[in-house]
């Protein structure tokens, strides 16, 4: 059975992060926004978000922030994910299944190459 961790563990995480200088709010930071309105949730956005969080945890990425937002108004494209890297304009992806989310994280967020087949046509 897993054991419940304590705040001491968090203190240690913080100290380690400080030592490794992993805390930065400088440009080049990566923001990922997941649409979590009713249509998004119904289309599976929670699992999409979980896939993104799992990726960050597994690949130990320390400069990515993740946000949820309400309904974006493009219901037929849900689940919708936006990727904002530094000063670049946001890229909006549609029908982002956990599998597509993984591709976006690997190819776009880490590799810098937009996953064009999943981009919502503007």
């Amino acid at each position: 059975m897993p054991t419940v961790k304590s705040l001491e563990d968090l203190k240690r995480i913080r100290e380690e992060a400080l030592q490794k200088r992993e805390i930065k709010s400088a440009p080049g930071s990566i923001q990922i926004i997941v649409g979590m309105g009713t249509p998004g949730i119904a289309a599976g956005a929670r699992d999409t978000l979980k896939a993104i969080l799992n990726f960050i945890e597994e690949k130990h990425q320390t400069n990515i922030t993740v946000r949820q937002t309400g309904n974006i108004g493009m219901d037929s494209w849900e689940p919708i994910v936006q990727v904002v890297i530094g000063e670049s304009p946001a890229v909006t992806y549609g029908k982002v299944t956990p599998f597509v989310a993984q591709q976006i994280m690997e190819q776009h967020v880490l590799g810098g190459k937009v996953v064009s087949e999943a981009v919502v046509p503007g």
Partner: protein
Amino acid sequence: MREIALHLLDLAENSVSAGSKTIEIAVCEDLCADRLIASIKDDGRGMDEETVKKVVDPFYTSRTTRRVGLGIPLLKGAAEECDGGLTISSTPGKGTLVQVDFRHSHIDRMPLGDLPKTFLGLTVGHPTVHWIFRYTARGLVAEDTFEFDDQPVKETLQDVPLSHPDVLAYLRETLKAGIFDARDKLN
């Protein structure tokens, strides 16, 4: 959405949109009383009486981008089919309380679903909101409550973001283990 945890996520998003600072989600599985009760309490902008009435009407939504909102009416319908119901009490400027309950053993009751996944997403996805989650399992011989308040976590972390990989692992394990351990009392 055939999962209570997904409906809670949907309701929580409404609370976030209402500008809430603190949002409390409580779930109780009570085998003695044969009820499953979930509630979400916020300190957002609230609604007047007329708006509350409209919220449970399938053809009402406060959103302006589309006209039809189905989250709450569908949940209410599902609860009523399982000898339960959904109530909303709200005060403008103070906040809103949504409560939903089902007969736990009802054959048509939707599953509780993945609460840790819902809670993890909310905590990380809305870091400026103060989240409190409570899960109670009341079995026939024993009961247990798991409570998670993200305030001490944030105070300890200070400028380390919740989306830091080690923090994600901490939150994921804490939520999962806490609910798993409490749920053991149902057996």
